[in-house]
């Protein structure tokens, strides 16, 4: 924020009011009310649409009119009151929804917090549904979000720092647990956030791009979520949470590859089920990237791999299709992406219809018109379903994106091309670092203690240490949770 010359207000209320009216000209919701207090004119200024009129009416105007004499600082039954003589602060306070009391004959103005910003009520985020677990989600107000989190962590170690970033400033909150978080990573995050100089509005997405290690990578390095329970469990792992005012999506950093495959469902359900679901999700990662490529390389290069019944079936279905499998795959993937993109914007009754249209028309009619073969549709349908299994939306998109180069590689080099593509992806992931911690840990570098939560989910009473991903300073998470069993 630039430091301007501090213009002070004068003792004369009318000139102050003139200055304010000048600044807020063409602002229809800038309201003022003149009353007398302490036998002097007192002006109450506020911005109508964002002030809590209850407080203004009951707690300020009513009280002032009742007591008629007294000290403003000590007599008003309001929770926060401060005084200033700087015009910039008064203007800033007004745009933040606060009420300003201008007293004639004093060059001190009083600022009372009366902000009331509209928020929608909380609801479960639509693209992060779980079966068992809490069903509330973050909203757009920073205060309410912090409210959700504080209600679950009632501890003095839960530190929250709010910094205004950018010009005009947006409030950005940095939350962490002091006794667990690694101070170096915290410093890095703060330094990176503070160095943002933006003259635009700040949203979570933009913030992430500014502080990420490598924005050009297809893999997200910061976890975005709208669920409080995800944030809580990550905070206890020593991660840092950043909330931007105005976005219901919060960012959690540092994130590793396996963080994107965890859901609260795993931990709330039974251990075996949690393990099974984890394995399915990791399997769907491979499936989504490689299945269309494997199909193309089988059909184009070496169909000898399959048993002969499958070979004759596939030959049956591709007999009259004019395109090569590569072109078929590209067509179908593009159509799927179009469908997916369209279905986001449609209101729900039409979305049902589009589902039927997509399924019947595209699936059946395209095959009957011999534009795409049957087996290709099966393969791509399974791929599409697999890509939606990934819990975090960004990662599932990245996977779908990655399947395109794999298709190209498979049609040039066959199976070796698929392995080559996988190698390039893995090399990229191994090189990637999210705020100093390796992206693909605990598989590369192998950290045996972390494996208990990455590939499988061991029962909660076995999770004695925290994952080392965020390099927490306190690694013991529980000593003995089954003390009753001797």
């Amino acid at each position, binding site marked *: 924020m630039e430091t301007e010359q501090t213009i002070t207000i004068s003792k004369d209320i009318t000139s102050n009011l003139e200055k304010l009216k000048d600044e807020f000209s063409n602002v229809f919701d800038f309201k003022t009310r003149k009353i007398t207090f302490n036998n002097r004119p007192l002006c109450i200024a506020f911005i109508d649409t964002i002030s809590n009129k209850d407080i203004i009416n009951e707690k300020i105007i009513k009280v002032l009119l009742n007591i008629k004499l007294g000290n403003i600082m000590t007599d008003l039954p309001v929770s926060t009151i401060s005084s200033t003589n700087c015009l910039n602060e008064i203007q800033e306070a007004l745009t933040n929804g606060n009420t300003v009391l201008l007293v004639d004959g004093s060059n001190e103005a009083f600022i009372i917090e009366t902000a009331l910003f509209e928020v929608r009520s909380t609801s479960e985020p639509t693209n992060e549904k779980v079966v068992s677990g809490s069903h509330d989600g973050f909203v757009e107000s920073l205060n309410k979000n912090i409210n959700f989190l504080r209600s679950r962590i009632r501890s003095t170690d839960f530190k929250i720092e709010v910094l205004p970033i950018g010009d005009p400033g947006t409030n950005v909150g940095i939350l962490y647990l002091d006794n667990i978080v690694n101070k170096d990573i915290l410093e890095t995050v703060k330094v990176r956030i503070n160095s943002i100089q933006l003259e635009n509005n700040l949203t979570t997405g933009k913030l992430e791009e500014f502080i990420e290690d490598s924005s050009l990578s297809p893999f997200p390095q910061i976890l975005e979520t709208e669920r409080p329970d995800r944030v809580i469990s990550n905070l206890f792992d020593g991660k840092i949470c950043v909330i931007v005012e105005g976005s219901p999506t919060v960012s959690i950093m540092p994130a590793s590859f396996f963080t994107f495959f965890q859901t609260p469902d795993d931990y709330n359900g039974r251990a075996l089920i949690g393990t099974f679901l984890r394995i399915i999700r990791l399997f769907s990662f491979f499936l989504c990237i490689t299945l269309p490529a494997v199909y193309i390389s089988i*059909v*184009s*290069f*070496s*169909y*000898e791999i399959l048993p*002969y019944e499958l*070979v*004759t079936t*596939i*030959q*049956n*279905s*591709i*007999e*009259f299709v004019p395109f*090569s499998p*590569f*072109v078929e795959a590209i067509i179908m993937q593009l159509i799927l992406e179009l469908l997916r993109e369209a279905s986001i914007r449609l209101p729900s009754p039409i979305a049902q219809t589009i589902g039927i249209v997509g399924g019947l028309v595209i699936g059946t009619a395209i095959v*009957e018109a011999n534009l795409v073969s049957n087996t290709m549709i099966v393969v791509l349908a399974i791929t599409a379903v697999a890509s939606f299994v990934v819990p975090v939306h960004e990662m599932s998109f990245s996977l779908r994106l990655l399947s395109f180069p794999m298709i*190209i590689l498979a*049609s*040039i*080099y*066959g199976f070796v091309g698929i392995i080559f593509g996988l190698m390039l992806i893995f090399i990229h992931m191994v090189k990637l670092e999210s705020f100093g911690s390796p992206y693909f840990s605990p598989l590369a570098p192998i950290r045996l203690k972390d494996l208990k939560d990455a590939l499988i989910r061991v029962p909660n009473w076995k999770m004695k240490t925290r994952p080392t991903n965020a390099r927490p300073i306190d690694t013991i998470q529980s000593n003995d949770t089954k003390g009753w069993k001797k």
Partner: protein
Amino acid sequence: MKKYHYITFLLIFFLTGCWDQHSLKDSALVLSIAFDQLTKDSIKATASVRTNISKGDQTEATNYIINDQGASVRDVRNNIDYQIPGSFSANKLLVMLLGENIAKNNLYPYFDNFFRFIRSPLTSRVAIVKGQASSIIEMKTYKDIFISESLSEMLEAGENISVIPKETQETIYKKMDDPGTDLVLPYLEKTDDETIKIKGVALLENNQFTGKILNNKQSKLLLLMQDKKSHTMSLSEQLGSNNEVISFKVKSIKRNLQIKNEKQPKVTIDLKIKIDLTEFTGEDLASDIKKKEIENKIAENIEKELKEVVSILQDANCDALGIGRYLMAYHPDTWKKINWEKDYSKVPFEVNTKVIMYTSGIIL
């Protein structure tokens, strides 16, 4: 100049027909092939190719038969290629049939192409056919199933009931060069216009068909002696006196093959078979004495038949039991002195059988 390079580099990635693509659409899927001897220098190959024809908006599978002649396997393959739409692909070959006459030559040259080519699977089954092998392939369908599938399933079923040993191109390759073992291959015959039968196994000596075969029962006994029972093996024996027939399933075999090596090698085979009774046309088996009697009678019969099998093997000079391999492994000095070609038929065999009845079905 630089931009031009980038564009060509990018365009490479859109070449959808790269060098090694072997598209499924352009392949003529050959699922079975039969070789016959035409003249001294040329062979005739008959192949059955799987294609699709479209009936309305459905495609239906069908196959067609093609044949040609040439000097060798690869040559005749090239010749067939000139006749068919698509390229000859024996990548999923299921069955390879050899006519009697062609099998009387050394078999190795007919397999060489399959072993050198990277795309040929070596898992296709091999069988020798009485007469002309092409006559079987030319049947096109057998019992309403396409000839390749039906042959392969027939051979597979035969392996499961332990009539024929499982011989694929790979296992043949291995045994071809082993001086201590000789091959036996399944023997098919087209008995009339509508029937193909497994007649037993053909005995080969030094990779050449001797002309002698073992019938079904004898080949089962051979497998018994080789200790290679598959899932099930059932036999029927006639028990002399009242023409009682007893049928049983062999449950487990314990075979002890010993080669005593004094002046000459002498082979002793001790077989202990546990059987499950499946049919008995005589009186009931309520008493234990009767059971013991039956067991002994079966053992006698089997011993006699096994001796017959051994004499046929020695006659054909076919070392199907792998005695030579045993000698190489355990008595290498004897092996060096012996000339196995001549001496095999003079080796005395002794077979002892013991039969134990395990269960007798759900009635006694």
